[in-house]
């Protein structure tokens, strides 16, 4: 039997199972990847709102050098849960669970993921883990940051144990989703969709799934050990009893650096889909972008210790990690340049999704450059543990993952619901978010370099080292600018709810896009594809007829954007 793509694909209509009936099977314990994607989206956005409010509490506290609103103990809990929730309960579930689940099976012409029941289980672990994490506020929230370095985390409040349990659970969810997506991409592509005809978002999801499956296990091991040490006193990490605090750091970052790529690779995929569609131009360097996703995923396993240049690992070990980190910057840089070249000579339509994608190019590049600053060992001796690091990763995660995610929301919302999000609200939201993000995080680079350490509930001593209340001024400035991101998020929530009811109907293919999901109705039917299509080529040649045969619906041979501003005057054909 040929082991090519499509071996497991259902080719005949009579293989279609009936849609489940009843509210619970349809919307609660659903096994439909699209419903599960919605569940991830809604749950993730609720946690996003909570973690975002925690961020505002941080900004409120830093309005005064001596701390404006809360005690050290409360502040430590707030920033720890902000970081933990944003990484594990917001970004990772949103970009893998929500985007990956909704888009990837549609893009490869599959009727669902490979293991739909497993997918349902993966999702239902997520809200449980989130509830456990936030419940830690009731018993004393973990206070040692999202990294929870021992030995201090061994002495942490009782909530630290709940933290372990919550992250362990979400790790299981991630591993299962990774396994599920890898099998789905490997085995369930439509006939004719070879690896080098795969859409770039699917490539990114595949690379992400690989990391999820391999790296998360290390974190689970580390968490189990921390749990055993906290609860039963098994000495893994406590140096007073023969444990090693550095061991935790290695195991933690062996997961958590690849986790950065779990967060950013799907955003890379989104950008690679959005830019060509709105530039009406093929993606520049398809193979390089696809393979560099895999290169990043694999190299990403060999750079973790660049988080540990000051931690006390053997000094010689710092050099290979510095060099590997520089190396991983190169495929990333190549991607940025390829996206830029995709714009070059295009016909740019400025939809909200496109604005977010272009904003991503600027803010993510900036975060990438400061990444090089941090990778150089001697420079990192100055920057480590300061607001420079905080600025860097908020540019990468906020300006990269979140901007990519927001581009995806505006791009695929019409496919998911059949209605467009309101573009005017979207554009106002984009500018609020873009300006708010830069205003909040840009000054942090300077505060960090001038001596402001992160995780400080008060910064009285630091403020004294700068003249004329400069330190406080910039902290107040950042706090004010952060309200821009709050407003943008509130506007997005409103836009989503408003557009579900009153949004403009989108039709099948509002953007004139060419991947498979745009060849079926919006929202897609329960079975996605009644007939499994055959793929003849890449989906990025905007002057060619669509590269598919055997489609369910009548198509424009060359689809064009139908929903954007029409020509002011009719143009003779």
């Amino acid at each position, binding site marked *: 039997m040929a082991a090519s793509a499509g071996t497991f694909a259902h080719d005949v209509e009579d293989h279609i199972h009936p849609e489940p009936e009843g509210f619970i099977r349809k919307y609660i314990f659903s096994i439909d990847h699209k419903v599960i994607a919605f569940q991830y989206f809604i749950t993730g956005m609720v946690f996003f709102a909570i973690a975002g409010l925690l961020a505002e509490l941080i900004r409120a506290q830093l309005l005064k050098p001596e701390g404006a609103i809360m005690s*050290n103990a409360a502040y*430590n809990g707030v920033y720890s849960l902000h970081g933990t929730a944003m990484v594990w309960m917001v970004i990772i579930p949103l970009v893998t669970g929500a985007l990956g689940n909704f888009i990837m099976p549609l893009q490869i012409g599959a009727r669902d993921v490979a293991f739909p029941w497993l997918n349902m289980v993966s999702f239902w672990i997520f809200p449980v883990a989130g509830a456990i994490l936030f419940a830690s506020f009731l018993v004393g929230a973990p*206070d*040692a*940051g999202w990294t929870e*370095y021992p*030995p*201090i985390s061994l002495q942490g409040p009782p909530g630290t144990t709940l933290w372990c349990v919550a992250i362990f659970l979400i790790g299981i969810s991630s591993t299962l989703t990774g396994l599920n997506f890898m099998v789905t991409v490997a085995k369930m592509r439509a006939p004719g969709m070879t690896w080098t005809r795969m859409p770039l978002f699917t490539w990114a999801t595949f690379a992400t799934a690989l990391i999820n499956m391999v790296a998360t296990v290390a974190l689970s091991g580390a968490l189990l050990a921390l749990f055993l040490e906290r609860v039963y006193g098994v000495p893994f990490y406590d*140096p*007073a009893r023969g444990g090693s605090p550095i061991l935790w750091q290695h195991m933690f970052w062996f997961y958590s650096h690849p986790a950065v790529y779990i967060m950013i690779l799907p955003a890379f995929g989104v950008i690679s889909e959005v830019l060509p569609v709105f530039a*009406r*131009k*093929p993606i*520049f360097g*398809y193979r390089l972008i696809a393979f560099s996703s895999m290169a990043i995923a694999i190299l990403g396993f060999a750079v973790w210790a660049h988080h540990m240049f*000051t*931690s*006390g690992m053997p*000094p010689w070990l710092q*050099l290979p990690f*510095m060099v590997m980190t*520089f190396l991983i*910057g190169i495929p990333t840089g190549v991607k940025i340049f390829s996206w830029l*070249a995709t*714009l*070059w*000579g*295009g*016909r*740019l*339509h400025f939809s909200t999704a496109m604005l977010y994608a*272009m904003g991503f*190019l*600027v803010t993510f*590049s*900036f975060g990438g*450059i400061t990444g*090089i*600053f941090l990778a*150089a*060992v*001697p*420079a990192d*001796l*100055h920057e480590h*543990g*300061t607001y420079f690091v905080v600025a860097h990763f908020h540019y990468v995660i906020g300006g990269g993952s979140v901007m990519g995610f927001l581009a995806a929301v505006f791009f695929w919302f019409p496919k998911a619901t059949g209605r467009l999000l309101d573009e005017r609200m979207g554009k106002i939201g984009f500018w609020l978010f873009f300006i708010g993000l830069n205003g909040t995080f840009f000054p942090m680079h300077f505060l960090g*370099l*001038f*001596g402001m350490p992160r995780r400080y509930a*008060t*910064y009285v001593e*630091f403020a004294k*080292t700068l003249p004329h209340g400069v330190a406080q001024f910039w902290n107040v400035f950042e706090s004010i600018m952060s309200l821009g991101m709050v407003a943008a998020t509130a506007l997005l929530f409103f836009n989503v709810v408003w557009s579900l009811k009153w949004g403009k109907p989108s039709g099948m293919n509002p953007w004139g896009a060419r991947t498979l999901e745009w060849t079926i109705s919006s929202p897609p039917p329960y079975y996605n594809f009644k007939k499994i299509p055959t793929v003849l080529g890449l989906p990025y040649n905007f002057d060619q007829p669509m590269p598919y045969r055997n489609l369910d619906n009548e198509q424009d041979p*060359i689809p*064009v*954007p139908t929903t*954007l501003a029409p020509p002011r005057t009719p*143009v003779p*054909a």
Partner: protein
Amino acid sequence: MAQVSRPAKMSMGPFFWTVTAVLTFWNIASAIWIAVTPLDYLLPASSLNVTDRGADIDFLFRFMSIFGNAIITYVTGYVIYFAIAFRRRRDEPANSVGVQIHDAPVLEFWWTLLPTLLVIALAVMSTRVWYLVQYGTGAPAFAVEVIGHQFNYEFRYPGLEGSVYDEMHLPAGRPVRVLVSSADVLHSFWVPEFRLKADTVPGLVQNLNFTPQVPGTYVIECTEFCGLNHSEMQARLVVDPPAKFEAWLDAQKAKAKSAATGAATVDLAAGNAGAGKLLFAQKCAACHSVGGFDQKLVGPGLGKIFVDKAHPKLVDGDAPTKANVAKIIENGYNGALGAMPSAQQNGLTGKDVANVDAYLASLK
């Protein structure tokens, strides 16, 4: 077959070379500016070269800022330029497409090669500085131990019995090796003006090698979360001219000697409850509340220590007098209720002990 509206010809875009020239000119101008002007807007006291290694690290910052600025300028500049030059005009049909090119191998070769060369250069320069920080220049170095505690620093000097707390002194112009370690949890030793940092790890000693060059007073900050009062964990670092440093070290030695022979006595009656309250908040409150005995944080509550009828004896079995309480503060405690560091480990002077004692006595 459907038609698309193609661009008339392959075009780099209007004013492409003009824009490129402007961006390049801007990058060259800012490269020169970054290279020759003091970096004090980016890094504290950069023009003073406070330490030799700090100056090396500032040079790395210069190099990275030059090419970082260039890359950001090109990316942002072209994003804005493309947005203007290649926007779809209102009078263009919806089916117009861009230039259908898929790649340009020559361009890709260069934009892969140039960043690669830059990071290779950076790696070579970084390795040199890394070696000097880790292993020193080979000149004999003056070794000082730094030990992190919750929430202060302890410093040990060669030839000095006992330790110095809260204020570190270093000689200017002499190679120094700072040996960094911890007594309890992770902390960090960072002096922003020195550009050098190492985490203090219990059971492990890390090295920082450098020569302080400019006398002055600097701040040591903890940058690794270490507990409730992490934000308040700082110490002073004084770089003295060599003669002044020797005088300071001799004075410390004399002080240690007199302490060892018991010459220093604590005048408990002179304790100031107000000063003691501040000290208590800094040094004791992480483990002790001012409630009753049962209001434990790490150790018992101390609010009723002199009047608690349920606990008429102190932990060491003595009667609750001011002298006996002072003895526990002075010597620390290690027993059934846990472990408490001594006054010396806590960085408390004899006067501080008297003040804390007076404060506790004032609580009824």
